[in-house]
């Protein structure tokens, strides 16, 4: 069991900077998710922790020992790859046994460890099969078993669920979280799927273009985003972001005219989540526009409204219906409005 520290870690590929000045502390037994779009540096960060890439600058410490220059095999980390990376020439039993064999675990202890790991992921009946004879979900579980079998200090997972279908992904998510809690192994998990991040993480690190945008618990990331990137990345559908101007305490944009905190002025971006607004009784609207589209999802109806040339998503009751191009009035919850500086994208917080 170990904590992980990244101190001013930089990764350059020639002139391109993959990861910029990264500082991150991962606590012992924590489940940390690196979240961001492709090319944001999250996988590079994980590969540096694994020892598959060397940082260009800065230190990485695992269990307070600097591991720079230490080969991947000597770091006592296990990794689950996106493509599972099972050894195709070996049976599942031999796949799970491989790390034990390589690390010189005595032969008479191996079998018990392998069967325990296989039972943990419910693969006990498939040990004789070759990876090619397993389904995607089973291969994923085999890769998981191979990673847990030797009880590593750190668990790394690189988009392990992205090759599975939606239903399987949901059940694997629960299984991974359960396993991590049971084994109490520090885990770093890379994904671009914000639902995975929200459901799995103790803390989420949102990354973009090689930089950390925000670090926090799923609740903090969701309800207190630090900038427009985080606000627009998290949530399904994500937060509505509308650029406008603040003049003498009013936020003005096409279709919107609402009160803004007193200290703001100039170009401001307003953010609000689809579920923090509703259909307004006449005359109380904070936002008016025309109905662009209606998407019933069963438990609710998502309404797309055109305000000016901007599409706004609103979560409406399940039985809400309206003809296209009809007028819609939306009430915004004043307590759940977010204001961002349009120039920098940073959150403007109320000073009081």
């Amino acid at each position: 069991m170990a904590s992980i520290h990244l101190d001013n870690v930089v990764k350059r590929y020639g002139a391109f900077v993959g990861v910029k000045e990264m500082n991150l502390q991962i606590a012992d037994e924590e489940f940390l998710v690196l979240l961001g779009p492709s090319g944001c540096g999250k996988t590079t960060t994980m590969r540096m922790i694994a020892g598959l890439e060397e940082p260009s600058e800065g230190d990485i410490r695992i269990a307070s020992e600097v591991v720079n220059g230490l080969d991947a095999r000597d770091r006592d980390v296990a990794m689950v790859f996106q493509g599972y990376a099972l050894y195709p020439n070996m049976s599942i039993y031999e796949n799970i046994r491989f790390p034990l064999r390589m690390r010189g675990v005595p032969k008479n202890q191996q079998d018990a460890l392998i069967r325990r790991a296989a039972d943990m992921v419910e693969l006990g009946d498939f040990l004789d099969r070759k990876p090619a004879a397993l389904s995607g979900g089973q291969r994923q579980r085999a890769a998981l078993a191979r990673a847990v079998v030797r009880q590593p200090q750190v668990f790394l997972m690189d988009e392990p669920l992205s090759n599975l279908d939606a239903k399987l992904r949901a059940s694997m998510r629960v299984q991974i979280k359960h396993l991590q809690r049971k084994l109490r192994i520090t885990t770093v998990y890379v994904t671009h799927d914000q639902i995975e991040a929200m459901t799995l993480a103790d803390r989420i690190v949102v990354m973009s273009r090689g930089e950390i945008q925000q670090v926090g618990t799923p609740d903090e990331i969701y309800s207190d985003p630090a900038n427009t990137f985080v606000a627009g990345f998290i949530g399904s559908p994500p937060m509505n972001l509308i650029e406008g101007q603040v003049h003498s305490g009013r936020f003005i944009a096409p279709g919107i005219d609402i009160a803004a905190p007193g200290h703001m002025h100039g170009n401001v971006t307003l953010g609000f989540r689809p579920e923090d607004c509703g259909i307004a009784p006449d005359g109380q609207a904070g936002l008016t526009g025309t109905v662009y589209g209606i998407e019933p999802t069963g438990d609710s109806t998502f309404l797309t409204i055109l305000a000016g040339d901007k599409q706004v998503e609103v979560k409406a009751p399940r039985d809400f219906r309206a003809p296209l191009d009809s007028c819609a009035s939306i009430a915004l919850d004043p307590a759940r409005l977010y204001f961002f500086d349009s120039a920098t994208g940073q959150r403007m917080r109320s000073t009081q």
Partner: protein
Amino acid sequence: MRALFPYLLVAPAVTYLLSITLYPGIYAIYQSFFLVRFNEWIPVGTDNYVELFADTEFWGALLNTLIIGGIALAVECLLALVLAYFAYRDPFIRGWRIVFLMPMLFMPSAVAFLWKLAFNDGRVISDLLMRLGLISQNIDFLGSVPLARLTLIVADVWQWTPFLFIIFVAALQGQDQEIEEAARLDGARWPQIFWNISLPMMRPVIAVAVILRGIDITTMFTNVYIMTNGTPGGTTETISYFIYRQGFRTFNFGYASAAAVIMLIITVVSAQLIVKRAFRSGRA
């Protein structure tokens, strides 16, 4: 007309292939049942085959081919694998693999003459070894059976190891890098990764390479013709050289054809066996 068009397109290739492989092949099978004296063809039934099975020179040639070709092939494979293991992770391999390819680009007869000079006529190798103080007098490479065979093996290895090397490097570079990385994290060192994972995954590729080289090596002729002429005492005479000698030295065409047909059968059957074995258990 529209239906005929595809056939029209492949017709030249098919005609070409049939005329240079199928026609001579059938011709040889047909001829193997005759005693051929230039224009006079006397049907002899299976006499050529019966005679061949009792011919110690034929069996000797077969054995020589097996010994020389087998050792050369094994050495080539081993050398190429070792070289590929060290080279495939080298980012500059693209730049300098042309160096490895060069022996393959030379004309085989020119290479054979070079080795003939080095081993026999020019005594270059003996001279080098003498100057190094390793031997005290010239080695007569054609004077002993193992040495004569060795010269053929060395010449073949020199020219054809690069062919296998290129194939093996491509196979290793084509392997999923995630699997190698997984093995590293599982605690494997490079030799262990190679032995436990990369090599088993290369099985089908190795099989194909061995078959291609094997077929080529069973028809080894140029080096024998130029370097040893089958000496000493026919111990370096390969099947191809035997067939050539029967056909074009003693003009016993029917007999040579029968030998060629038997050789064809042996080659096809053994290639089939290797393919079957390698691909059945190589499939994951």
